[in-house]
C-alpha cells in the first residue's frame, strides 16, 4: 500500500500533494497542534520592513523617546560625574582630614586640655576603622637659633631662627609627607630617644645641606642633632617644609616639650565624620569633651542638597518626555494600523492569526522605542562627556545605564504599542479587506 502511494506520488505530483493533504486532514487535530510558528527572523524582517516603509515618520515618532531617554541618561550621568568629582578632586584632602587639638579658649583650661593629649596616638587611633594614618605634633617653644655642624661655608650666615616641631612617628603619613633624601625617624629612634632630626627642604637649602652620607649635625639652641632626612613636601601641613622635626622623646629630653598640641588624622573617604566622633574618646577616654575636633562638613550632604533639586527636575522632565514619547508612538502606531487596514486583511487571508497581527505591530512600536532608547542613550552619554569635558571632570558612568536605557526605550514602545496592536488584532479580516482597498 505504502509503495503504491509512493509510486502514485512520483507519477503525479499533484495527486500526491492532494493525498498528502488528505492524510493531513485525517490527522487534523494533530496538524493543528503542530501548527508551524511565525519565525523570529521573519518577525524581525517584517518589523524592519514595516518601520522603514515610512522612515521619516518613524524618525519623528522616536524623537520623544530619544529626548526622554537622553535627558534621563544625561541627568543620572552628570550627577554621578559631579558627585564623584566633589569627593574625587578638590575636596579630597580636606574631606579626609581630622584634627584633634587642645581647646585654646580660657587660659587655665587650655593647659589642662593639652595635658590630656598623649603621644602614643598611633596605637590608639590607627586601629579605628577608617583611619589611614595618625600622628601627634607639638611646636617647640623658644628652641633658640639653629646652626650647622661643621661650618659649611664661613662666608654664609649659618645661624637662623627656624620653627622646630616634636612629633610621633605617624606624623609623616598623616600629613602626607614625602622624604626626598635620607629617611624619617622610626619607633626605634623614639624608644632610644635618639637625637635625630628631619629638616624641611627649605631649611636644607638655607643651610646648603643636600647630602646626608656625612651625617651632618645641627644645633638647635645648644643641643646637637644628627640630620637623617630631608622633608620635601607635606600636603596637609606645608609649614613643615620650612621647619625641623625631631622625635618627641628627644624633644622631651632636650627641648622642654611635654605634651602634643594636636593630633593629625588621615581617614578614608567618607569616614571623617565617624572618626571625628571616635578619635577624642580613643585619645582621652576621660576628657574627650575638653578636646577640639576639626573635621570637614559632610561634603555629600551639603552639595547634594542643591544637586538633588536640579536632578529631580531633570528626571521629571525626562519622565515627562518619555510619557510624551510613548503617546507619540501610540498615536503614530494607531494611525499606521488604520492606514494598513487592507494589509491587515491581506495578512489574515494569507494565514496570519490575530496573535501574529498583534505581534507585528507590537514589535514595530517596540523597535521604534528601542531605536529611540539607543539614540537617546548615545545623546545622553555625549552630553555627559561634553559637560564633563567643559569642566575638566572625569566622566563617570554606571555601566548599567547605557544598557538599561535602550531596554527602557523598548519598554516604552511596547507599552505604547499595546492598544494599537489590540485594535489591529481585533479587526475582522473581511472588514479589513473591504476597507483597505
Amino acid at each position: 500500500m505504502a509503495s503504491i502511494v509512493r509510486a502514485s506520488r512520483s507519477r503525479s505530483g499533484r495527486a500526491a500533494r492532494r493525498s498528502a493533504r488528505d492524510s493531513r486532514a485525517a490527522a487534523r487535530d494533530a496538524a493543528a497542534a503542530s501548527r508551524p510558528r511565525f519565525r523570529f527572523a521573519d518577525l524581525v524582517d517584517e518589523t524592519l520592513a514595516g518601520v522603514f516603509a515610512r522612515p521619516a515618520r518613524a524618525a519623528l515618532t522616536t524623537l520623544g523617546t530619544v529626548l526622554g531617554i537622553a535627558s534621563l541618561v544625561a541627568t543620572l550621568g552628570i550627577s554621578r560625574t559631579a558627585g564623584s568629582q566633589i569627593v574625587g578632586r578638590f575636596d579630597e584632602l580636606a574631606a579626609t582630614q581630622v584634627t584633634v587639638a587642645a581647646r585654646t579658649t580660657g587660659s587655665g583650661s587650655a593647659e589642662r586640655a593639652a595635658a590630656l593629649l598623649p603621644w602614643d596616638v598611633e596605637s590608639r587611633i590607627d586601629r579605628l576603622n577608617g583611619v589611614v594614618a595618625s600622628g601627634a605634633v607639638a611646636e617647640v617653644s623658644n628652641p633658640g637659633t639653629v646652626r650647622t655642624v661643621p661650618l659649611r661655608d664661613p662666608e654664609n650666615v649659618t645661624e637662623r631662627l627656624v620653627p622646630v616641631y616634636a612629633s610621633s612617628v605617624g606624623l609623616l603619613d598623616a600629613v602626607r609627607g614625602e622624604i626626598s633624601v635620607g629617611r624619617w625617624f622610626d619607633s626605634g629612634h623614639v624608644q632610644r630617644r635618639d637625637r635625630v632630626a628631619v629638616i624641611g627642604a627649605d631649611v636644607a637649602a638655607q643651610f646648603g645641606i643636600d647630602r646626608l652620607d656625612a651625617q651632618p649635625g645641627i644645633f638647635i639652641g645648644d643641643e646637637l642633632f644628627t640630620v637623617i632626612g630631608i622633608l620635601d613636601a607635606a600636603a596637609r601641613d606645608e609649614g613643615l617644609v620650612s621647619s625641623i622635626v625631631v622625635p618627641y622623646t628627644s624633644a622631651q629630653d632636650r627641648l622642654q616639650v611635654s605634651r602634643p598640641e594636636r593630633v593629625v588624622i588621615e581617614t578614608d573617604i567618607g569616614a571623617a565624620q565617624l572618626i571625628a566622633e571616635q578619635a577624642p574618646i580613643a585619645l582621652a577616654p576621660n576628657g574627650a569633651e575638653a578636646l577640639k575636633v576639626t573635621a570637614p562638613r559632610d561634603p555629600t550632604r551639603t552639595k547634594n542638597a542643591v544637586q538633588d533639586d536640579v536632578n529631580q527636575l531633570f528626571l521629571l522632565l525626562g519622565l515627562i518626555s518619555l510619557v510624551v514619547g510613548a503617546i507619540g508612538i501610540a498615536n503614530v502606531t494607531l494611525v499606521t494600523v488604520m492606514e494598513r487596514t487592507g494589509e491587515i486583511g491581506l495578512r489574515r487571508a494569507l494565514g496570519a492569526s490575530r496573535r501574529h497581527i498583534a505581534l507585528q505591530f507590537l514589535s514595530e512600536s517596540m523597535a521604534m522605542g528601542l531605536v529611540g532608547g539607543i539614540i537617546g542613550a548615545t545623546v545622553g552619554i555625549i552630553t555627559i562627556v561634553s559637560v564633563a569635558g567643559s569642566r575638566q571632570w572625569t566622566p563617570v558612568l554606571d555601566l548599567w545605564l547605557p544598557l538599561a536605557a535602550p531596554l527602557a526605550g523598548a519598554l516604552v514602545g511596547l507599552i505604547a504599542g499595546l492598544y494599537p496592536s489590540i485594535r489591529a488584532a481585533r479587526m475582522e479580516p473581511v472588514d479589513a479587506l473591504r476597507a483597505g482597498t
Partner: protein
Amino acid sequence: MTAVDVDPTPVEAPERTPVVLLDQVCRVFPTEPPVEALRSIDLRVDPSEYVAIIGPSGSGKSTLLNVLGLLDRPTSGRYLLDGIDTADLGDAARAAERGRRIGFVFQSFHLLSYRTVEENVGLSELYLGTNRKDRRRRATEALDRVGLSHRLGFEPIRLSGGERQRVAIARALLGEPSLLLCDEPTGNLDTANTESVLDLFDDLREQGLTILVITHDSEVAERAQRRVRMVDGQLTEVA
C-alpha cells in the same frame, strides 16, 4: 494491484474528496432588518474544477467567497474544506488552514507597496513557518509560473495592472493551495490583461488547481467549465 485487494481503500480515494462541500449553508447578517446573504446553499466542488460564480451585485457572491475562504463563518449549515469540518476549527486554526489551503485573488490586488514583487509573493508562506531561503526559491518559481521572473525586485507601483494581478496570483499559488478563490480578478483590468489572466487560469487548471471565480463578466465566466448563478442569496447551477 494485489495491494488494492488487501486494502479496500483505493489509491484514487483522495481524489474524490471534494475540495468544497457546502450543506445547507446560511449566512444572515444581524443588521436591522437582518440580511439573508446566503440561503441554504448546497455546493460541491471537486478537485481540478474551474467554477465561475455569476450573479447581480448584492446577491451574496462575496459573502459566499468569504465563507469558502474561512474569512467568515456560516450562520448555519456545514462546510467541509478538503473533508475537514470547518465548524470544529477555532480562530487561530482557521487562520492556519486559510494560509495552507486557500489562495486569494482580489479585484484590487492587495499588494504591499513597500515590498518588492518577490517579497509580496513570499508573504504567502510567512505564516506557514517555512524558512526564508525556501520561501524565496518558491516565490521565484511561482513568479516564473505567471511569467514574471524578470520583475522580482520591482516595486508593485512600477507594474501594469495585469502584471500586478499576476503577482497576486503567484502569491496565491505559493502555499500549494487546494482552492484558488478569486473575487472579480479581472474587474480592474483591460481586455488584453484580462485575457492574459484568463490564459493563466486555464494553465493552472490544467495543472490540477481548483479554481473558483466570481465575475460580472460573461466572457470570464465562459472560460470556466462550470457556472453557478447567485440570485438573492440562492445558488443555481447554470446548464
